[in-house]
C-alpha cells in the first residue's frame, strides 16, 4: 500500500489549493450559496476547463485524464478546504462512478466525454427514505415501454438534482424486492413528467433536490436487474471520496481556529497561550491527522484493488464523520461569540461538516458496515 504522495501529486495539490483559494474566497462562496443554482455554470465550465477536474478519474478512452482515486481524492480534499460551489461531487463522483461501474462500453462512450469536458452536469438519484442509504430501500419503479422504460415514483436528497443535465436513477422492476430487480437508468434533466424542487438545506453550499417522476421516459444504463453490485461499488467509492473531502473540511476548520487563537487577545495574552486551548488544539490535530490517514489509505486501497475495500471505505467515512463534527464543534467554541455569527465564516465549514456527517450514512451506520466485514 502506498503511504505517501508523489512529488507530481504534491504539486497538483498545491496548484489546486492556490487556484481554488483565488477563485473561491468565502465572499464568492457566500454569493453563490445564496443563489438557487448554487453555482455559476459559465464560471464553473471555465474553471473546470482550465483544471480538467471532472476529467481526472475518467479513463482517456472516454475523454478523461485517466488518473486514479489518489488524484480524485486530492481534488476532493481541496474542495473541502475551499468549499468551492460547484456540482463536482454529484458529477465527478456519483454519476461518473455509476456510469463507469454499471455502463456498457457504448454507454460510457456516449456519456462520459461530455462529463469530462464539463459540458454535462450529472448526478445520481437513489435515496427516497431518510433512514435508508442502501439500494434495497428503493421503491421507484421502472416499467418497460416501447424500446425503453418509464419511471414512476420519487427521489429525494439528490445532489444538484435541480440543475443536473443528466440524472442517473436507481429503480426497480415492479413487484421485485431487496437487491433483486434493481436497474440504473439515465434521464434528461428536462424530461417530460419529471418535476424537480430545490430543497432548503442546512448547508447552503450543498444543494439538494426532490425529484418526482410521473411516467418519465428513461434509458437503461448497464444490465437490467443487475444494478445492485455496480451500485454498491459506486457507494463504496463515494464514501472514500467524501471522507477525503471531509478531511479537507476538518483541516481547514482546525487551521482557521489555530490562526484565530493566536491572534485573539484576552487577559493580556493570546488565547492560544491558555493551556486548555493548546490541549484542545493538540487533540484536534490528532483527530484530523488520523482521519486523513484513513482517508488516504482508503483512496490508495481503491486504486490498488484491496480486497478489504468495503470495510476500509466505511472505516474512512466513519473516522472522517467523527473528526469533522468534533473539529467543527471545537472550532465554533474557540471562536467564541463571533463564531456564532453569520458574518464569521466558521459556520460555513461547520455546516459542511454536519451535512457530510449524514450524507451517505452516518458514523454509526459505517461502523456497523465495517464490523459486518471484520466480525461477521
Amino acid at each position, binding site marked *: 500500500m*502506498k*503511504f*505517501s504522495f508523489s512529488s507530481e501529486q504534491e504539486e497538483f495539490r498545491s496548484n489546486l489549493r492556490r487556484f481554488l483559494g483565488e477563485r473561491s474566497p468565502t465572499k464568492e462562496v457566500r454569493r453563490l450559496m445564496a443563489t438557487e443554482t448554487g453555482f455559476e455554470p459559465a464560471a464553473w465550465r471555465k474553471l473546470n476547463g482550465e483544471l480538467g477536474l471532472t476529467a481526472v478519474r475518467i479513463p482517456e478512452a472516454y475523454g478523461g485524464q485517466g488518473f486514479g482515486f489518489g488524484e480524485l481524492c486530492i481534488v476532493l480534499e481541496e474542495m473541502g478546504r475551499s468549499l468551492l460551489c460547484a456540482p463536482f461531487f454529484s458529477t465527478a463522483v456519483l454519476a461518473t462512478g455509476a456510469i463507469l461501474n454499471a455502463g456498457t462500453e457504448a454507454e460510457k462512450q456516449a456519456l462520459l466525454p461530455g462529463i469530462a469536458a464539463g459540458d454535462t452536469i450529472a448526478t445520481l438519484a437513489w435515496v427516497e427514505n431518510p433512514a435508508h442509504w442502501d439500494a434495497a430501500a428503493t421503491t421507484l419503479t421502472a416499467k418497460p415501454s416501447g424500446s425503453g422504460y418509464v419511471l414512476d415514483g420519487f427521489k429525494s436528497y439528490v445532489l444538484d438534482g435541480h440543475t443536473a443535465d443528466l440524472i442517473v436513477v436507481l429503480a426497480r422492476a415492479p413487484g421485485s424486492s431487496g437487491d433483486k430487480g434493481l436497474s440504473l437508468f439515465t434521464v434528461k434533466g428536462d424530461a417530460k413528467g419529471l418535476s424537480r424542487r430545490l430543497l432548503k438545506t442546512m448547508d447552503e453550499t450543498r444543494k439538494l433536490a426532490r425529484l418526482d417522476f410521473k411516467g418519465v421516459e428513461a434509458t437503461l444504463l448497464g444490465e437490467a436487474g443487475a444494478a445492485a453490485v455496480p451500485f454498491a461499488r459506486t457507494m463504496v467509492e463515494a464514501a472514500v471520496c467524501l471522507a477525503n473531502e471531509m478531511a479537507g473540511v476538518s483541516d481547514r476548520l482546525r487551521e482557521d481556529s*489555530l490562526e484565530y*487563537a*493566536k491572534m485573539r487577545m484576552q487577559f493580556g*495574552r*493570546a488565547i*492560544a*497561550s491558555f*493551556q486548555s*486551548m*493548546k*490541549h484542545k*488544539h*493538540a*487533540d484536534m*490535530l*490528532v483527530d484530523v*491527522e*488520523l*482521519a*486523513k*490517514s*484513513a482517508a*488516504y*489509505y482508503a483512496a490508495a486501497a481503491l486504486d490498488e484493488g484491496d480486497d478489504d475495500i468495503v470495510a476500509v471505505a466505511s*472505516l474512512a467515512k*466513519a*473516522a472522517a464523520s467523527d473528526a469533522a463534527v468534533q473539529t467543527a464543534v471545537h472550532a465554533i467554541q474557540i471562536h467564541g461569540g463571533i463564531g456564532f455569527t453569520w458574518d464569521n465564516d466558521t459556520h460555513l465549514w461547520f455546516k459542511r461538516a454536519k451535512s457530510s456527517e449524514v450524507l451517505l450514512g452516518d458514523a*454509526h451506520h459505517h*461502523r*456497523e458496515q*465495517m*464490523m459486518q466485514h*471484520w*466480525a461477521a
Partner: protein
Amino acid sequence: MSELTEDSVRAEVRAWLEANWNPELGLVEWRNKLADSGWGVPTWPKEWYGRDLPQGLQAVVDEEFARVGAIGVAKAGIRTLAAATILAHGTDLHKEKFLRRILTGEDTWCQLFSEPGSGSDVAGAVTRAEMQGNKWIVNGQKVWTTSAHHAHWGLLLARTDWDQTKHKGLSYFIIDMHQPGVNVQPLKQMNGHASFNQVFLTDAVVEPEFLVANVGDGWAVTTTTLMHERRGADGLRTWAMGSDRKGRAYDEERAEIATTMEPYKWYPQRAGRVDLILPRARETGHLGDPVVRQEIAKLLIMSKSAEWTARRARAAAQQGKPQGPEGSLGKLVASHVARAAARIHTQLSGADALLSGTDSPMNGTIAEILVSVPATSIAGGTDEIQRNIISERVLKMPKEPSIDTTKPFRDVPRNTVR
C-alpha cells in the same frame, strides 16, 4: 560504488544470512557476527556496527531476517535509548566500550532521570554530581527507574551547577550501577509487578570520562534520549515475545526474555491488547451486541488510523521529507487506544472483570490489561506533556509562561524532599 536498491540490499542480506545464520550458535556469538557485519543495525554508521543504509531499506533487512527466523541484535529496553544517545553525543571511547555489548545483549541499561520531586519537569532534577579529586561524586534519589535492579549501566541526569539557571546547570553521565554507592530498591506497581525501582545514590562514583557531552550540556543530551523514547512508544506491542523454534540461539533468547526482559512482560498488556478484542468478543458471546459492536468499531478505527498515521510518517521520512505533524502524535494516540481497549475488555468480561490472576480470563491477561493501561499515559511523558509538546512545537502556540527558567536554580521553588 554500486547504487543501493531494494533488490541489491535484499540479495546481499539474503546471501549473508545464508552463509552465516545458524540457530546452533550461542546468542552472543551470533550477535557479535551481526555487529561485525553491520546487518544487525544496518542504518547505523559503517564505523559503528552499521552499514549506513537509508532508513527506508531497514524493512527489507527485517523481512529477510524474519524469512529465515534469524534473531536480531538485542533491541528492547532502555538499551536502545542508550545506544541512540551515545551515537548522537558519545565519545569514541563511549562507543567502543558500550555499543557492541548493547547489541549483543550482554549489558542492560536503565534511565535515571525521574526523581521524587521532578518527573514531567525532569529538568528540575536535584540529584547532585560534584567533582571531588578527579571523580564525579553523585548524591540523590531517582525513582520509577525501570530495570535498575538488573542494569549494568545507568543514563544519569544530575545537577552540576546550582548557580546556573535550571536547564544550564545539568550534566549527563553514564554510571556503573554495580557499585556500593548505588542502592536499588524495587518499587511495587499497581499491577503487582515491580519492573521499576527507587535508586538511592550515596557518594556514587562516576569516572570523569563517563560524562556525556560537556558539563552543563545535560539537557540537550536528555532531550535526545526522550525524543527516542517517545518515538518508540507506538512500538511497544512486539516486545518480549520469543519464538518457539528449536536451537541454541533460540533457547538463549528465551532465557534472555525470562530474565533481563522480565520487567517488560506486561508491556503488551499496557498497550491494551487490541489484538484480543475480537476473539474475546466472540468467546464471550458479545459479537452480536450492537452497542458493543459500535465500541469495538470505534477502537479498531482508531487503532488502524494510528497505524496508518505512523506509516505515513515513516513513508515521508523515507522520502527525505521534513517531518510533518503526523510524526508527533503516536504516543498520545497510543494512550487513547490503550484506554479504549481496556474499557471494551471490561465490557466484554462482565463480572469476570472483578477477578485477577489465575481466576481472571486468559489466565490473568485480561486483569493485567485493566491494571496496566494507566502506565501508558504516564511513562515516557504524560499525555498532558505530549499535548504541550504538540501545541508548542508542532502548532507553534505560545509556550507556557515560565517562572523558573531565568533565575539561578537554587532560588527556584520546588518540592521539598523529606
